[in-house]
């Protein structure tokens, strides 16, 4: 019974991992790729970890209780950190000037931050710094 439950959990988790990575390859934009890949792979890996927990506690593998507790700890940690990492990447991408895909319909972050600019120029490249070597030529 435990083994069947662990098989189902690990199998569904592997499917989520594979579809997340297919989304990472197929989707057109950085923001779409962040969306697809992070959500699918976080859930898939957490399901693999929970399946490891079920299998290790149910089947009496030697050292199984330590394995299960470490798997649970790792699942909680991935659930906490993966959305933070994805949010930081998307913010960094927007601030470094990566444009949205042409088919995107709405850009709430850009509307809120630069309401006066036209929609094509809302992503903000870091143009405040001088190019490298420019200040040295002036001396």
């Amino acid at each position: 019974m435990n083994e069947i439950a662990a098989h189902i959990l690990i199998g569904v988790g592997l499917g989520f991992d594979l579809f997340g990575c297919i989304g990472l390859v197929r989707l057109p934009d950085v923001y779409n790729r962040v969306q697809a890949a992070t959500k699918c792979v976080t859930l898939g890996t957490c399901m693999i970890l929970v399946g490891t927990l079920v299998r290790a506690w149910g089947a009496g593998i030697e050292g199984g209780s330590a394995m299960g507790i470490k798997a649970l700890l790792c699942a909680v940690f991935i659930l906490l950190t993966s959305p933070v990492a994805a949010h930081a990447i998307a913010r960094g991408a927007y601030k470094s000037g990566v444009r949205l895909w042409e088919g995107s319909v709405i850009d709430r972050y850009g509307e809120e931050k630069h309401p006066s600019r036209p929609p094509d120029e809302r992503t903000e490249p870091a143009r405040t710094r001088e190019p490298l070597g420019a200040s040295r030529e002036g001396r």
Partner: protein
Amino acid sequence: MTTFLLIGALVLLLSAFLCLYRIGQGPTAPDRTVAIDILGTLVVGFCCIMALWTGHDFYMNVAIAWALLSFIGTIALAKYLEGRYYDE
């Protein structure tokens, strides 16, 4: 059980190759950063498969350490991206 775990390891390997394609091909630096983050999470799942396959629990130590270091590396890369041009 062993056949199932072998199939699981092959599926994770295929996913990792898709991530490597995006790391090599990605047009901008944030694409590559996303793919590196996802690859780190996939390695955690692979460590679970290896722990179940061999029955040794030190693979879970590797998984915990890998998750921590992957998170810190991704945050550092994202902060590095914020003040740059996208192709720099």
